[in-house]
């Protein structure tokens, strides 16, 4: 289980790469605001 705190540039880049490399890994991303990847 991977937990990512923060759903912007770094967090979503890492999360989507792990999803591609390890389709079976459980990934949870927590984002305080209403949008993800909002700055990049």
């Amino acid at each position, binding site marked *: *289980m991977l937990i990512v705190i923060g759903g*912007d540039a*770094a967090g979503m880049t890492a*999360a989507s790469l792990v999803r591609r*490399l*390890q389709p079976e890994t459980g990934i949870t991303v927590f984002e305080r605001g209403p949008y993800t990847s909002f*700055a990049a």
Partner: protein
Amino acid sequence: MKDLTSATERWEPYDQLLLATGARPFRPPLEGIDSRNIYDVHNLVNGTQLKRALAEQQPRSAVIIGGGYLGLEMAEALHMRGLNVTMIQRSAQVMSTLDPDMGGRLNRALLHHGIDLRVNETVQGFEHKAGLAVAVATDKQTIPADLIILGLGVVPNSQLAKDAGIPLGPKESIKVNAMQQTETANIWAAGDCAQSFHLVSRRPVHIALGTIANKQGRIAGMNLGGRPAAFPGVVGTAITKFMDTECARTGLNEREIEALGLEYAVGMIEAHTLPRYYPGSAPISVKVLAEKSSARLLGVQIVGGPGSAKRIDTAATALHAGFSLEDLLYLDLSYAPPFAGVWDPIVIAARMALKNG
């Protein structure tokens, strides 16, 4: 974990944890700073709020506090929307990541376009009525404003890491190695909350930029996904523009070189982006800094007209490669009159630095 919708709290177990908590705008604890019409343009939510306020409240005047990247870009945006824009800068020149002689050119560009630039002035608070700021009080005067923009830089969101006992680095950014691992097992950090390694100073730095955040996120993702990867580091490259004046920097500026105690030589030239006879040719100023003893390239700054600033990438690449000034002199760079002169302005400036070394 606190659910902000239901206001409930719960524990979430992890095998691996990535901290990508970003950075937040620096808001000095000044009287009236929480007024509704004081904006830091930091994310989609408050950017949208600002745009709505511009449309609905039709402000006529804006005061921008801080003449950095955000300050310059907001000055351009608000000026183009027809607002009367005042900019307050604590030091003598805007763009303090450039040397004063280069940043001063941005002062002139702002003044040329009618921005009321107040330098060497410090904000002390805000006059406010019913939750709205009506004026900015500085150490010299009171400036009425319908709208106020804060552009005072950012601080890393590292409190969570700090509370967990994870060691921090420069400016309270989270200390990480090249794989983006913190010093606590199974906890990683990437992006604006984390430090980077500076390839020129060979020291950790905190630079909050989307370019670095994307790369660090990619490195963390590779490692977490079972493909070992290391982030080589950064050289401090950044670029922006105000109206028709572009600026960019890479490597170290004079202040940063002096802080390392290095002796340096300067090469400074005024040239043109294209041959002068060619339509669209614009002035470009290039400053090259190099270590005196070794002639190792330390930094480059560019200010100029359209087509100037993106040329910084040649210098950024040279810094990554550890080039000396001699290495720059005979680079096989592209030339044809619609694109450039025979001698690239960075090469001419490098030649000047070599002569002055």
